[in-house]
């Protein structure tokens, strides 16, 4: 996979993850053009398209579009399911996820994506394992929060 973009129906970018090094200018250009192209497509249309020399797979969930650029020999259908798995993970974690969750917790969305995909390839497809990893992170976070609080009261 070359990159993944999440954007809203209004064309606002919510998350971007690039798996190949690109200059910032080019990233912005690709994003702008691709968002326009996809938003112009009708609902019943095919989820795959050839765009420039890339293969694009996208799917809309409520107000958010998930869009991946994949290699020519990558499997399109399974890319749709990577998107779905990611949505499921977000959903499970946030409890019926909405666009706002991703805006306010964008760093969590990134961490979750890094567990699912690494370097553009699937790392862990088990929902349970990904959520376990994220839960472990949160646990560390809470421990630290408690520690900080204790310190403030001079107890640690």
């Amino acid at each position, binding site marked *: 996979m070359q990159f993944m973009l999440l954007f809203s129906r209004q064309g606002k970018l919510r998350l971007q993850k690039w798996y190949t*090094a690109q200059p910032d200018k080019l990233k912005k250009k690709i994003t702008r053009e691709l968002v326009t192209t996809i938003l112009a497509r009708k609902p019943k*249309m*095919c989820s*795959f398209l050839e765009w420039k020399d890339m293969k694009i797979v996208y799917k809309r969930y409520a107000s958010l579009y998930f869009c991946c650029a994949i290699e020519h020999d990558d*499997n399109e259908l399974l890319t749709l399911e990577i998107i779905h798995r990611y949505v499921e993970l977000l959903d499970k974690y946030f409890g019926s996820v909405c666009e706002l969750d991703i805006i306010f917790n964008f760093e969590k969305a*990134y961490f979750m994506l890094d567990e699912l995909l690494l370097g553009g*390839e699937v790392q*862990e497809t088990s929902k349970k394992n990904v959520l376990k990893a994220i839960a472990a992170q949160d646990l*560390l976070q809470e421990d*630290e929060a408690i520690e900080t609080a204790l310190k403030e009261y001079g107890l640690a």
Partner: protein
Amino acid sequence: MPAVKGDGMRGLAVFISDIRNCKSREAEIKRINKELANIRSKFKGDKTLDGYQKKKYVCKLLFIFLLGHDIDFGHMEAVNLLSSNKYTEKQIGYLFISVLVSASSDLMKLVVQSIKNDIVSRNPVHVCLALQCIANIGSRDMAEAFNRDIPKLLVSGDTIDSVKQSAALCLLRLLRTAPDLIQLGEWASRVIHLLNDQHMGVVTAAASLIEALVKRSPEEYKGCVSLAVSRLSRIVTSSYTDLQDYTYYFVPAPWLSVKLLRLLQNYPPPEDPAVRTRLTECLETILNKAQEPPKSKKVQHSNAKNAVLFEAINLIIHMDSDPNLLVRACNQLGQFLSHRETNLRYLALESMCLLATSEFSHEAVKKHQETVINALKTERDVSVRQRAVDLLYAMCDRTNAEDIVAEMLTYLETADYSIREEMVLKVAILAEKYAVDYTWYVDTILNLIRLAGDYVSEEVWYRVIQIVINRDDVQGYAAKTVFEALQAPACHENMVKVGGYILGEFGNLIAGDHRSSPIVQFQLLHSKYHLCIPSTRGLLLSTYVKFINLFPEIKAQIQEILRNDNNIRNPDVEIQQRAIEYLQLTSVTSTDVLATVLEEMPPFPERESSILAKLKKKKPGAAEDPDAAGGKSSPPTVASKPMPEISVNASYQPQGASGGSADLLGLSSSAPPAAAPASNDTGCLVDVFDMLGTGASPTSNGLTAAADENYKSATTPDLEAGPDKIHEFVCRNNGVIFENDLLQIGIKSEYKQNLGRVGMFYGNKTSVPFSNFTAEVSLPGELSSQLMAQAKPVDSQVEAGAQKQQLVNIECVTDFTVPPVLVINFLYNGAQQHMTVKMPVMVNKFLEPAEMDAATFFQRWKNLSAPAQECQKIFKAKPPMDGEQTKSKLLCFGLSILEDVDPNPENFVSAGVLHTRNQQIGVLLRLEPNSQAQMYRLTIRASKDAISTTLCELLESQF
């Protein structure tokens, strides 16, 4: 404000809310600038921030960046977070680095250091963060820093699964960035055996890595085939409960299955019969499962199941050996062609294109012709229709060409603008390729022009003319058909061009009929004349003059048109010139001369269809030559030369008309002797090449002719003038240094001590003389005091196809770094041409080899130990690393090869003297190849400061 998970940075949430509440873009920018100012002052302030605050501000910056604003500070604070012992701080630091810090940043060294600490941490979550950061950035520096640690982590028995998964994909990313730096060596087999790992997540990640390794060296990793087959077999025969959480909507491990099926597509069908049978069983099972009723109505179930199925079909097509499987695959895809899911129809059309190219399944694909044509008519999504066009193109052969072409023509009328041009090309190719009856071909192309004239590129109408000219049997029909087509009240300009050309050649064939008598033909064409653009008018004028030859009875009418002020005084110089010359030609010459000059065009040489070339260029890969489909049909007519330009104005040559050449249509380059322009391209520097070819070139610097030969064969001169061209001449004194459409420049040089004699050769590649030709040597900047160059004057006239020589005497006064520049000016066809070309005169040309024994060498080496005297470079080798070649390069560079000096026989030691007018400079060299890492270390020491650097840079480009 929704709940914030985890510890929740309240300040961040408030900020995000503020931004969301901004009513306008201006308000948002104002709020952001306020925040940026605040963060900047916090970072600059003397009060030290604690980890939490740093994390919060870095996170805010990240958010601002993701909104699309540029962030130019805070990087250092993010790097500081990496060394925090708090996980969340570290994590945010790494996130910021991954998203915002470019691989070329100066901070990367610090980042790499932090990663080094974390990667050996006892805490696996820290190791994972470090690995994720490497995978996200994946720079070359990282590959250098971690190419030992990561493979070790991957195969070590102590590593926990999640770390192994990250390590595998991290390595994959580095492998993509720097394939030369990632060598697994003896660990290769342990990596392959990860396919047997207990943990499905590890196998999935490893399978991606292994596929990339296999692509690099299939032989080394071929042991993975049997492991992949057995793993696949275990998955496809398992029930969906066996794999627990790796079953996705009742499909067992779809991601891993697809990876394994992909992996196997890198190899031919397994040789071992047992493995092969097992694989066939797997593929059959997958095909069988497709027929079973779905276990769930969810789209996720069918997507995952079909993803595996499509990948299995890809493998079946790749193996292309089992007719039974191929036909089954085809039938399965046939079912999908009318599936209600658009995505499946799209993919089925795409996969079937591949099946159409296999001889086993080509016929089976053809059964679905009607469905595909139907898709063309009914699909609502243009991307699906595009796939249908591709498939029709791929499945076309002689038996169905007429139907398919007819359907495509019908569709063309309503086709989307985005795919019209490509469709036109495809129709044109199919019509030509499968034409039995060339009248059908002519009809088809004229239809194309009628239906989609704007999308008919020049290649298409050139081609129909070539074919008509080459086939006597179709000429009369073509003349009649274009005549009819031109009668339409509005006809496309391309139709006028084709019509004009064909009637000019073959109008006589239909002139017997009073309805298309000469004067009628002429009037018909001329009724379009005033609507056409100048280039078309030029073509029509040529048609008219051809008419004078074909039909002397209408000479007066035509001359009247030529004489008309609209032509003879036309502001367009092309039209004016044609009118004047044609008028003159037809007034002064005898009918015999006229008949010779205006003779019918001779046949074109057979060559690759220019249309096919265009389609290939437009869609590389997607534009399979339909010949490849099933390997039947006519023999290919491929020639390497691209089709010469036949447009009227592009290659129109004034002396064509007055000089009595047969070429009046500006078709000189395609008219026989058609080979002439081809040989012209390379012909004008023949003597330089001859000299190079014999290997008897006068060379100095003590290099042997054999060494010179050796080097030459390694780097055949590339005739394109590229920016790095000059590097080719560091070790070479003769060859072509520049070439474009007009001019070729060759060089032949000799050096002795600090003097050089350089012969420059200027070849005129065109058929027009160059006038006011000047070539001067310019010595920019400092060079004017470092080098003396005296160029002899060169003749100001360079005749067409001729070559002029110029001698340049050069003296090296002192060492220099930039080469002199050749400034060339001349007039071509009245247009001023100016070019500058770097002359391959580098400081090493004034080097002469020196011999010495080991003791002397080491003594001198030690004496040259000041930092400015030495330059060392470590760089990646351009393969192959061949010892003999290296020797000859060093010799050609101007140095000796000192044997038995370096204790390591792989290393090279050389010495030389650089001659300048003012002094002689001693140069010593040591070159250490490392064939394992494919790297060189080059060390040069010289008795004068800075020279070693110049020489190092020159020599580095050669290895």
